[in-house]
Protein backbone atom coordinates (compact mmCIF):
# COMPACT_ATOMS: atom_id res chain seq x y z
CA UNK A 1 0.00 0.00 0.00
CA UNK A 2 1.26 3.46 -0.89
CA UNK A 3 1.80 5.51 2.26
CA UNK A 4 -1.28 7.71 2.65
CA UNK A 5 0.67 10.39 4.44
CA UNK A 6 2.71 11.05 1.28
CA UNK A 7 -0.03 13.18 -0.18
CA UNK A 8 -2.39 15.48 1.62
CA UNK A 9 -5.31 14.15 -0.37
CA UNK A 10 -4.62 10.61 0.77
CA UNK A 11 -4.43 11.67 4.40
CA UNK A 12 -8.23 11.58 4.33
CA UNK A 13 -7.92 7.80 4.54
CA UNK A 14 -6.15 8.18 7.84
CA UNK A 15 -8.74 10.72 9.01
CA UNK A 16 -11.55 8.39 8.04
CA UNK A 17 -9.80 5.52 9.81
CA UNK A 18 -9.37 7.52 13.02
CA UNK A 19 -13.01 8.59 12.95
CA UNK A 20 -14.08 5.00 12.29
CA UNK A 21 -15.69 5.85 8.96
CA UNK A 22 -13.50 3.60 6.85
CA UNK A 23 -15.01 0.34 5.62
CA UNK A 24 -13.71 -2.81 7.26
CA UNK A 25 -11.63 -4.01 4.30
CA UNK A 26 -9.86 -0.67 3.81
CA UNK A 27 -9.37 -0.33 7.58
CA UNK A 28 -7.65 -3.72 7.70
CA UNK A 29 -5.28 -2.76 4.87
CA UNK A 30 -4.47 0.55 6.56
CA UNK A 31 -3.84 -1.14 9.89
CA UNK A 32 -1.32 -3.46 8.24
CA UNK A 33 0.41 -0.40 6.81
CA UNK A 34 0.36 1.51 10.10
CA UNK A 35 2.15 -1.38 11.76
CA UNK A 36 5.18 -0.84 9.53
CA UNK A 37 5.02 2.94 8.94
CA UNK A 38 6.13 5.14 11.86
CA UNK A 39 4.83 8.34 10.24
CA UNK A 40 1.33 6.95 9.75
CA UNK A 41 1.42 5.37 13.17
CA UNK A 42 2.24 8.73 14.74
CA UNK A 43 -0.44 10.44 12.65
CA UNK A 44 -3.06 7.90 13.71
CA UNK A 45 -2.08 8.14 17.36
CA UNK A 46 -2.27 11.92 17.34
CA UNK A 47 -5.53 12.01 15.42
CA UNK A 48 -7.08 9.48 17.76
CA UNK A 49 -6.10 11.71 20.68
CA UNK A 50 -7.71 14.71 18.96
CA UNK A 51 -10.89 12.73 18.36
CA UNK A 52 -11.11 11.66 21.99
CA UNK A 53 -10.34 15.18 23.20
CA UNK A 54 -13.09 16.64 21.04
CA UNK A 55 -15.46 14.04 22.50
CA UNK A 56 -14.89 15.65 25.91
CA UNK A 57 -16.49 18.87 24.68
CA UNK A 58 -20.17 18.37 25.36
CA UNK A 59 -22.58 21.18 24.54
CA UNK A 60 -24.95 22.62 27.12
CA UNK A 61 -28.67 21.87 26.74
CA UNK A 62 -30.77 24.41 24.90
CA UNK A 63 -32.74 26.84 27.11
CA UNK A 64 -36.26 25.59 27.87
CA UNK A 65 -37.80 28.85 26.61
CA UNK A 66 -35.95 28.80 23.27
CA UNK A 67 -39.03 27.91 21.25
CA UNK A 68 -41.29 30.35 23.05
CA UNK A 69 -38.84 33.22 22.36
CA UNK A 70 -38.51 32.20 18.72
CA UNK A 71 -42.26 32.11 18.14
CA UNK A 72 -42.60 35.49 19.81
CA UNK A 73 -40.04 36.89 17.39
CA UNK A 74 -41.90 35.31 14.50
CA UNK A 75 -45.17 36.85 15.65
CA UNK A 76 -43.55 40.25 15.68
CA UNK A 77 -42.63 39.87 12.03
CA UNK A 78 -45.44 41.95 10.59
CA UNK A 79 -45.74 41.80 6.87
CA UNK A 80 -47.02 44.71 4.85
CA UNK A 81 -49.96 42.50 3.94
CA UNK A 82 -50.75 41.95 7.60
CA UNK A 83 -50.84 45.73 8.08
CA UNK A 84 -53.24 46.05 5.13
CA UNK A 85 -55.52 43.30 6.45
CA UNK A 86 -55.51 44.51 10.05
CA UNK A 87 -58.54 46.87 9.67
CA UNK A 88 -60.64 43.94 8.43
CA UNK A 89 -59.79 41.50 11.24
CA UNK A 90 -62.80 42.48 13.41
CA UNK A 91 -65.02 41.16 10.60
CA UNK A 92 -64.09 37.67 11.88
CA UNK A 93 -63.42 35.57 8.83
CA UNK A 94 -64.71 32.09 9.30
CA UNK A 95 -62.39 29.28 8.33
CA UNK A 96 -64.81 28.00 5.78
CA UNK A 97 -65.18 31.38 4.03
CA UNK A 98 -64.74 30.78 0.32
CA UNK A 99 -61.61 32.28 -1.17
CA UNK A 100 -63.73 34.01 -3.80
CA UNK A 101 -65.75 35.87 -1.14
CA UNK A 102 -62.55 36.94 0.64
CA UNK A 103 -60.98 38.06 -2.62
CA UNK A 104 -64.16 40.00 -3.44
CA UNK A 105 -64.00 41.82 -0.12
CA UNK A 106 -60.38 42.76 -0.68
CA UNK A 107 -61.09 43.91 -4.21
CA UNK A 108 -63.89 46.13 -2.89
CA UNK A 109 -61.49 47.53 -0.30
CA UNK A 110 -58.95 48.15 -3.03
CA UNK A 111 -61.49 49.96 -5.16
CA UNK A 112 -62.66 52.05 -2.21
CA UNK A 113 -59.10 52.98 -1.32
CA UNK A 114 -58.04 53.78 -4.88
CA UNK A 115 -60.44 56.26 -6.48
CA UNK A 116 -60.02 56.89 -10.20
CA UNK A 117 -59.55 60.51 -11.38
CA UNK A 118 -62.90 62.32 -11.78
CA UNK A 119 -61.97 63.99 -15.09
CA UNK A 120 -59.21 62.42 -17.09
CA UNK A 121 -56.90 65.01 -18.59
CA UNK A 122 -56.68 65.36 -22.33
CA UNK A 123 -53.17 64.00 -22.44
CA UNK A 124 -53.56 61.08 -20.05
CA UNK A 125 -54.39 57.58 -21.23
CA UNK A 126 -58.11 56.84 -21.38
CA UNK A 127 -57.93 53.65 -19.33
CA UNK A 128 -57.77 54.30 -15.59
CA UNK A 129 -55.45 52.00 -13.70
CA UNK A 130 -56.90 50.66 -10.52
CA UNK A 131 -54.72 48.71 -8.13
CA UNK A 132 -56.58 45.67 -7.00
CA UNK A 133 -55.46 42.83 -4.87
CA UNK A 134 -55.25 39.52 -6.65
CA UNK A 135 -57.01 36.45 -5.23
CA UNK A 136 -53.68 34.71 -4.66
CA UNK A 137 -52.64 37.56 -2.37
CA UNK A 138 -55.86 37.11 -0.42
CA UNK A 139 -55.11 33.40 -0.19
CA UNK A 140 -51.63 34.24 1.05
CA UNK A 141 -53.10 36.49 3.71
CA UNK A 142 -55.42 33.72 4.90
CA UNK A 143 -52.46 31.33 5.05
CA UNK A 144 -50.55 33.87 7.11
CA UNK A 145 -53.47 34.19 9.51
CA UNK A 146 -53.74 30.42 9.80
CA UNK A 147 -50.03 30.13 10.54
CA UNK A 148 -50.33 32.87 13.19
CA UNK A 149 -53.15 30.92 14.83
CA UNK A 150 -50.97 27.79 14.77
CA UNK A 151 -48.03 29.65 16.25
CA UNK A 152 -50.24 31.14 18.95
CA UNK A 153 -51.36 27.64 19.85
CA UNK A 154 -47.75 26.40 19.89
CA UNK A 155 -46.60 29.36 22.00
CA UNK A 156 -49.28 28.80 24.61
CA UNK A 157 -48.72 25.06 24.73
CA UNK A 158 -44.93 25.65 24.79
CA UNK A 159 -45.27 28.01 27.79
CA UNK A 160 -46.99 25.21 29.66
CA UNK A 161 -44.38 22.58 28.78
CA UNK A 162 -40.78 23.70 29.00
CA UNK A 163 -38.55 22.05 26.41
CA UNK A 164 -34.87 21.10 26.47
Amino acid at each position, binding site marked *: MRCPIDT*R*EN*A*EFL*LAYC*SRKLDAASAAILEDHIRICPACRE*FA*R*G*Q*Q*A*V*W*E*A*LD*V*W*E*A*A*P*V*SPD*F*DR*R*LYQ*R*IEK*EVSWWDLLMRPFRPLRFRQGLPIAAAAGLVIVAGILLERPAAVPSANSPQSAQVDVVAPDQAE*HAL*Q*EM*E*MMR*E*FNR*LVHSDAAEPK*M
Partner: protein
Amino acid sequence: MPERVRTDVGGAGAALDYDAELMLRVKEGDGASFGVLLDKHRSSVVHFLYRMVQNQPVAEELAQEVFLRVYRSRSTYEPTAKFTTWLFRIATHLALNAIRDGKNERLQEHLDDDSSDMPVRQIPDSQPSVEEFMVYQAKLDEVRRAVATLPDKQRAAVLMHKYEEMEYAQIAKVLNCSESAVKSLLFRAYETLRARLAHMA
Protein backbone atom coordinates in the same frame (compact mmCIF):
# COMPACT_ATOMS: atom_id res chain seq x y z
CA MET B 1 -30.87 8.60 8.03
CA PRO B 2 -33.56 11.01 6.79
CA GLU B 3 -36.54 9.44 5.18
CA ARG B 4 -36.76 9.71 1.42
CA VAL B 5 -40.11 10.90 0.20
CA ARG B 6 -41.20 10.94 -3.38
CA THR B 7 -43.23 13.94 -4.26
CA ASP B 8 -44.42 15.64 -7.36
CA VAL B 9 -43.21 18.98 -6.07
CA GLY B 10 -39.97 19.90 -7.79
CA GLY B 11 -41.08 18.19 -10.97
CA ALA B 12 -40.86 14.73 -12.46
CA GLY B 13 -41.20 12.80 -9.16
CA ALA B 14 -37.74 13.82 -7.87
CA ALA B 15 -36.79 12.24 -4.53
CA LEU B 16 -36.49 14.75 -1.67
CA ASP B 17 -35.18 14.30 1.82
CA TYR B 18 -37.86 14.35 4.48
CA ASP B 19 -36.76 17.71 5.86
CA ALA B 20 -37.12 19.29 2.43
CA GLU B 21 -40.60 17.80 2.20
CA LEU B 22 -41.48 19.35 5.56
CA MET B 23 -40.12 22.71 4.44
CA LEU B 24 -42.28 22.55 1.33
CA ARG B 25 -45.28 22.02 3.60
CA VAL B 26 -44.22 25.09 5.56
CA LYS B 27 -44.14 26.94 2.24
CA GLU B 28 -47.75 25.90 1.71
CA GLY B 29 -48.74 27.29 5.10
CA ASP B 30 -48.35 24.29 7.39
CA GLY B 31 -47.07 25.80 10.65
CA ALA B 32 -46.90 22.42 12.37
CA SER B 33 -44.23 21.26 9.91
CA PHE B 34 -42.08 24.21 10.95
CA GLY B 35 -42.41 22.98 14.52
CA VAL B 36 -41.26 19.51 13.49
CA LEU B 37 -38.19 20.94 11.75
CA LEU B 38 -37.44 23.07 14.79
CA ASP B 39 -37.71 20.08 17.12
CA LYS B 40 -35.44 18.03 14.91
CA HIS B 41 -32.67 20.56 14.30
CA ARG B 42 -32.80 22.97 17.26
CA SER B 43 -30.12 21.23 19.32
CA SER B 44 -27.67 20.58 16.53
CA VAL B 45 -27.84 24.19 15.33
CA VAL B 46 -27.43 25.62 18.84
CA HIS B 47 -24.58 23.23 19.65
CA PHE B 48 -22.79 24.01 16.40
CA LEU B 49 -23.11 27.74 17.02
CA TYR B 50 -22.03 27.31 20.63
CA ARG B 51 -18.84 25.58 19.58
CA MET B 52 -18.24 28.24 16.94
CA VAL B 53 -18.70 31.28 19.17
CA GLN B 54 -18.14 29.57 22.54
CA ASN B 55 -20.84 31.58 24.26
CA GLN B 56 -24.21 29.97 25.02
CA PRO B 57 -26.44 33.09 25.05
CA VAL B 58 -24.90 34.36 21.81
CA ALA B 59 -25.24 30.90 20.27
CA GLU B 60 -28.94 30.78 21.12
CA GLU B 61 -29.48 34.27 19.80
CA LEU B 62 -27.81 33.31 16.52
CA ALA B 63 -29.79 30.06 16.39
CA GLN B 64 -33.02 32.02 16.76
CA GLU B 65 -31.92 34.16 13.81
CA VAL B 66 -31.23 31.00 11.79
CA PHE B 67 -34.74 29.66 12.28
CA LEU B 68 -36.23 33.11 11.76
CA ARG B 69 -34.51 33.30 8.37
CA VAL B 70 -35.74 29.81 7.53
CA TYR B 71 -39.27 30.94 8.34
CA ARG B 72 -38.92 34.20 6.37
CA SER B 73 -37.67 32.30 3.33
CA ARG B 74 -40.51 29.80 3.29
CA SER B 75 -42.38 31.40 0.37
CA THR B 76 -39.35 31.25 -1.90
CA TYR B 77 -37.89 27.95 -0.67
CA GLU B 78 -36.75 25.54 -3.37
CA PRO B 79 -35.20 22.16 -2.46
CA THR B 80 -32.05 22.61 -4.53
CA ALA B 81 -29.92 21.00 -1.80
CA LYS B 82 -30.40 19.00 1.39
CA PHE B 83 -32.30 20.98 4.01
CA THR B 84 -29.44 20.61 6.52
CA THR B 85 -27.02 22.01 3.95
CA TRP B 86 -29.15 25.14 3.68
CA LEU B 87 -29.68 25.30 7.44
CA PHE B 88 -25.99 25.05 8.27
CA ARG B 89 -25.09 27.47 5.51
CA ILE B 90 -27.24 30.08 7.26
CA ALA B 91 -25.80 29.12 10.66
CA THR B 92 -22.21 29.25 9.44
CA HIS B 93 -22.76 32.58 7.74
CA LEU B 94 -24.20 34.09 10.92
CA ALA B 95 -21.45 32.60 13.09
CA LEU B 96 -18.68 33.88 10.84
CA ASN B 97 -20.26 37.34 10.81
CA ALA B 98 -20.60 37.32 14.59
CA ILE B 99 -16.96 36.35 15.01
CA ARG B 100 -15.76 38.97 12.53
CA ASP B 101 -17.99 41.67 14.07
CA GLY B 102 -15.85 41.56 17.15
CA LYS B 103 -18.17 39.54 19.36
CA ASN B 104 -15.30 37.11 19.46
CA GLU B 105 -13.40 39.61 21.60
CA ARG B 106 -16.01 39.12 24.27
CA LEU B 107 -16.05 35.43 23.59
CA GLN B 108 -12.32 35.06 24.06
CA GLU B 109 -12.61 36.65 27.50
CA HIS B 110 -14.91 33.88 28.51
CA LEU B 111 -12.23 31.30 27.85
CA ASP B 112 -10.30 32.76 30.73
CA ASP B 113 -13.28 33.08 33.01
CA ASP B 114 -14.71 30.48 35.26
CA SER B 115 -17.75 30.77 33.02
CA SER B 116 -21.08 29.23 33.86
CA ASP B 117 -21.59 28.77 30.10
CA MET B 118 -19.65 25.57 30.27
CA PRO B 119 -21.80 22.50 30.61
CA VAL B 120 -21.55 20.45 33.74
CA ARG B 121 -20.59 17.00 32.68
CA GLN B 122 -23.12 14.38 33.62
CA ILE B 123 -21.32 11.30 34.81
CA PRO B 124 -23.92 8.62 35.31
CA ASP B 125 -24.01 6.40 38.34
CA SER B 126 -21.31 8.20 40.29
CA GLN B 127 -20.33 11.63 41.47
CA PRO B 128 -16.96 12.75 40.14
CA SER B 129 -14.31 13.45 42.69
CA VAL B 130 -12.97 16.96 42.93
CA GLU B 131 -9.78 15.81 41.26
CA GLU B 132 -11.65 14.12 38.39
CA PHE B 133 -13.74 17.25 37.91
CA MET B 134 -10.68 19.49 37.82
CA VAL B 135 -8.94 17.20 35.34
CA TYR B 136 -12.07 17.25 33.18
CA GLN B 137 -12.31 21.04 33.36
CA ALA B 138 -8.64 21.42 32.44
CA LYS B 139 -9.10 19.12 29.43
CA LEU B 140 -12.21 21.00 28.38
CA ASP B 141 -10.44 24.36 28.60
CA GLU B 142 -7.59 23.04 26.51
CA VAL B 143 -9.95 21.70 23.84
CA ARG B 144 -11.91 24.95 23.71
CA ARG B 145 -8.75 27.01 23.40
CA ALA B 146 -7.37 24.76 20.70
CA VAL B 147 -10.55 25.05 18.64
CA ALA B 148 -10.71 28.80 19.24
CA THR B 149 -7.24 29.21 17.71
CA LEU B 150 -8.39 27.74 14.41
CA PRO B 151 -9.20 30.19 11.61
CA ASP B 152 -12.95 30.64 11.18
CA LYS B 153 -13.47 28.41 8.15
CA GLN B 154 -11.22 25.66 9.50
CA ARG B 155 -13.18 25.80 12.75
CA ALA B 156 -16.50 25.51 10.95
CA ALA B 157 -15.23 22.62 8.82
CA VAL B 158 -13.94 20.69 11.84
CA LEU B 159 -17.13 21.20 13.83
CA MET B 160 -19.30 20.03 10.94
CA HIS B 161 -17.00 17.09 10.23
CA LYS B 162 -16.62 15.95 13.83
CA TYR B 163 -19.90 16.80 15.57
CA GLU B 164 -22.40 16.84 12.69
CA GLU B 165 -20.63 13.95 10.92
CA MET B 166 -21.04 15.66 7.57
CA GLU B 167 -19.31 14.31 4.50
CA TYR B 168 -16.81 16.44 2.61
CA ALA B 169 -19.29 17.10 -0.20
CA GLN B 170 -21.91 18.54 2.13
CA ILE B 171 -19.37 20.65 4.03
CA ALA B 172 -18.21 22.00 0.67
CA LYS B 173 -21.76 23.06 -0.19
CA VAL B 174 -22.22 24.69 3.22
CA LEU B 175 -18.96 26.62 2.88
CA ASN B 176 -19.50 27.24 -0.82
CA CYS B 177 -16.14 25.83 -1.83
CA SER B 178 -14.76 22.76 -3.54
CA GLU B 179 -14.40 19.36 -1.93
CA SER B 180 -10.64 19.54 -2.26
CA ALA B 181 -10.70 22.90 -0.47
CA VAL B 182 -12.63 21.26 2.38
CA LYS B 183 -10.07 18.45 2.59
CA SER B 184 -7.34 21.05 2.74
CA LEU B 185 -9.17 22.99 5.46
CA LEU B 186 -9.63 19.83 7.52
CA PHE B 187 -6.07 18.64 7.00
CA ARG B 188 -4.65 21.94 8.26
CA ALA B 189 -7.15 22.16 11.10
CA TYR B 190 -6.47 18.66 12.38
CA GLU B 191 -2.75 19.26 12.01
CA THR B 192 -3.08 22.23 14.36
CA LEU B 193 -5.27 20.29 16.76
CA ARG B 194 -2.85 17.35 16.80
CA ALA B 195 -0.04 19.70 17.71
CA ARG B 196 -2.05 21.08 20.61
CA LEU B 197 -3.96 18.07 21.83
CA ALA B 198 -1.95 14.95 20.98
CA HIS B 199 -0.39 14.97 24.46
CA MET B 200 -3.85 14.27 25.87
CA ALA B 201 -3.69 10.71 24.52
